[in-house]
């Protein structure tokens, strides 16, 4: 792909040549547009780091919040020549980019936990997986040297549990998936053969559909979904293939239509089909907070921790932020030319900030969803040794929503941590309302449905975070509706005077680090344009 520009103007330019020309003529935005048309970049709005430069000498920026959005702002603005300071509410950097390990303390409203996980074990209470198309996160991981490993998202050998299906007995996802498409294929084939769709599909398409249903649903010669060797090749076996005299496999029974529908397995199939849930997925080796730590290695010296903002004001000459030092109680004030505010809306809505009524209304119209995570450290990896489950999720309609098996250190000896709960909605409220001890006990009760003999017997210790009780955010992440987007989104993200907001709440990638980073890049690009024009 190093074609020289063709000297022959009659020969159409190659795609690469065309993109180079468009990029030179129209800049990155035009290039991105063009790449999207060619199907190159449609996965992401990220078109590379912003390459800001030429800040006016002595220009200063104050960044509120040392999560990923704030630290990325500081990192890129510093490179552009601004003098940056970050004020951070907590005693740590990283925000929701957060990992807890043995020796850590978790302070929720109303409780304190001391985590006792073995060395190397961890829980990511916040973000935990990175889809392949979150190009901004992946770019900065590469740029900052964060080692990524595979995150096992999809695993056919995990379980699905629904209280109203199969007498509450968990089934392997593989079995339900194969049964579901088998029955759907059989029914569609029946409809086609009965002529029910003859006015809808052509004779040619009907023949193709019948062939497709037979292949896709693994139907027998009578176009029925039944027990057999072919189905066994997808669904597994009562006796698996072996060697020698008893080598022949014996297929198992298939599930019937009513049982299959009772599991609502289509929801799980749909879940894995969502763009943000599709493989390949990644995780930082050893804990998600390696991303925050990598940013902190670049800009941590700019951060003032334990600094709780009380007031944000601006005038023609700059911004003034009042704060209180959480350790000493001392009041202080910081000044700068410009401000990037990444304080979550739950807290920002309680502060005195000098912006328009429309922006204040937007900040206060943004409720945060609630979520809970619970890490359960088990004495051994029984899900691997006893169940052949290596990563992935077993879903349930109980409050815990799922248990998720750890990626990494496969086949390892010694204790390992699995994720014992990750609900939003009612399940999350119900668990969050409990003390950490009761929450962990509930997770052990509910998760036992999948591994009844081992779950409680192998349990060592637990750690949990209820986001609604984290004193520095009071929620998990912003919840938008189409209506609130229409009414408030542009007011929230607009730059007003010297102030611009950033964070996942200022993006269409709510609850994802990608949203925080994309929002940050957009905010500082506009800030730099305004500062350069001032």
């Amino acid at each position, binding site marked *: 792909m190093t074609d020289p520009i063709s000297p022959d103007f009659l020969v159409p330019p190659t795609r690469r040549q065309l993109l180079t020309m468009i990029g030179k003529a129209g800049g990155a935005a035009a290039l991105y547009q063009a790449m999207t048309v060619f199907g190159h970049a449609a996965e992401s709005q990220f078109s590379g780091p912003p390459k800001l430069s030429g800040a006016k000498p002595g220009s200063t920026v104050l960044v509120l919040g040392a999560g990923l959005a704030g630290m990325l702002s500081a990192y890129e603005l510093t490179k552009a020549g601004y003098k940056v300071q970050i004020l951070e509410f907590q005693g740590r950097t990283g925000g929701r980019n957060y990992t807890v390990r043995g020796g850590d303390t978790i302070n929720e409203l109303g409780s304190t936990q001391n985590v006792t996980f073995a060395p190397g074990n961890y829980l990511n209470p916040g973000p935990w997986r990175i889809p392949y198309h979150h190009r901004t996160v992946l770019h900065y991981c590469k740029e900052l040297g964060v080692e990524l490993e595979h995150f096992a998202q999809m695993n056919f050998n995990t379980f699905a549990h629904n209280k109203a299906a199969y007498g509450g007995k968990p089934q392997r996802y593989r079995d339900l998936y194969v049964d579901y498409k088998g029955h759907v294929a059989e029914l569609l084939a029946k409809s086609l053969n009965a002529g029910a769709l003859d006015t809808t599909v052509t004779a040619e398409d009907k023949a193709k559909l019948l062939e497709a249903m037979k292949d896709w649903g693994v139907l027998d010669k009578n176009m029925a979904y039944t027990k057999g060797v072919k189905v066994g090749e997808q669904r597994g076996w009562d006796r698996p293939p072996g060697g020698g005299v008893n080598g022949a496999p014996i297929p198992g029974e298939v599930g019937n239509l009513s049982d299959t529908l009772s599991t609502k397995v289509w929801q799980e199939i749909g879940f894995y089909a969502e763009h943000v849930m599709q493989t390949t997925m990644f995780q930082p080796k050893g804990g998600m907070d390696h991303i925050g730590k990598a940013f902190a290695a670049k800009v941590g010296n700019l951060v003032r921790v334990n600094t709780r903002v009380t007031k944000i004001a601006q005038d023609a000459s700059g911004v003034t932020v009042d704060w209180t030092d959480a350790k000493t109680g001392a009041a202080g004030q910081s000044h700068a030319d410009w401000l990037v505010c990444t304080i979550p809306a739950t807290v920002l809505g309680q502060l005195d900030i000098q912006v328009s009524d429309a922006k204040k209304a937007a900040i206060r119209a943004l409720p945060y969803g609630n979520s809970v995570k619970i890490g359960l450290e088990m004495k051994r990896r029984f899900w691997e040794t006893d169940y052949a489950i290596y990563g992935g999720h077993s879903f349930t309609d109980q409050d815990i*929503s799922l248990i998720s098996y750890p990626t990494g250190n496969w086949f390892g000896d010694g204790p390992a941590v699995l994720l014992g709960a990750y609900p939003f*909605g009612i399940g999350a409220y119900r668990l969050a309302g409990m003390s950490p001890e009761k929450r962990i006990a509930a997770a052990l009760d509910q998760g036992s449905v999948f591994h009844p003999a081992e779950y409680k017997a192998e349990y060592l210790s637990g750690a949990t975070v209820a986001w609604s009780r984290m004193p520095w955010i009071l929620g998990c992440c912003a919840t938008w509706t189409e*209506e609130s987007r229409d009414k408030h989104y542009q007011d929230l993200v607009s730059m007003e005077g010297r102030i611009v907001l950033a964070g996942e709440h200022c993006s269409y990638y709510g609850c994802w680090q990608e949203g925080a980073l994309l929002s940050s890049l957009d905010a500082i690009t506009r800030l730099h344009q305004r500062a350069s024009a001032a």
Partner: protein
Amino acid sequence: MVRKQKFGLLALAAMTLVATATLSDPGFAQDRGGPKSDAAAGDSGKEVFEQICAACHMADAKGGGDVGARVPALAGNKNLANKDYPIIILLKGRGGMPWFTDILTKQQIAAVITYVRGHFNDYKDPVTVADIDRIGSTNPPVPDCNCGH
């Protein structure tokens, strides 16, 4: 999607449907644990309080946090003297607190407000489904707040 909500009885039902697709089943691209849950909270006011409200307002209803980052107390809260106030907030949300029309029924909303006003405060007059419908149809604005109060 409905742009302007007029809170007639039908509109309240419609809003419930609209909201169903949002909080319990988070919106576009949001990370979530898995397939949507059809879990329901208990019916009594006490159960709803313990299973939903206590997640943020704490078991003693005293809230938590510090000035500037606070979950307000429901216990001893003078704003609750006017029963319309909590009804509006449960129907529409305010600040970081979401609306609850998508995960609670009108009966549950009436029951939990009655419980919180009577048990953690001394306002003994019950809140009824008719009160919820009245607020739904008159559609008053959300009271302004310093949301940590």
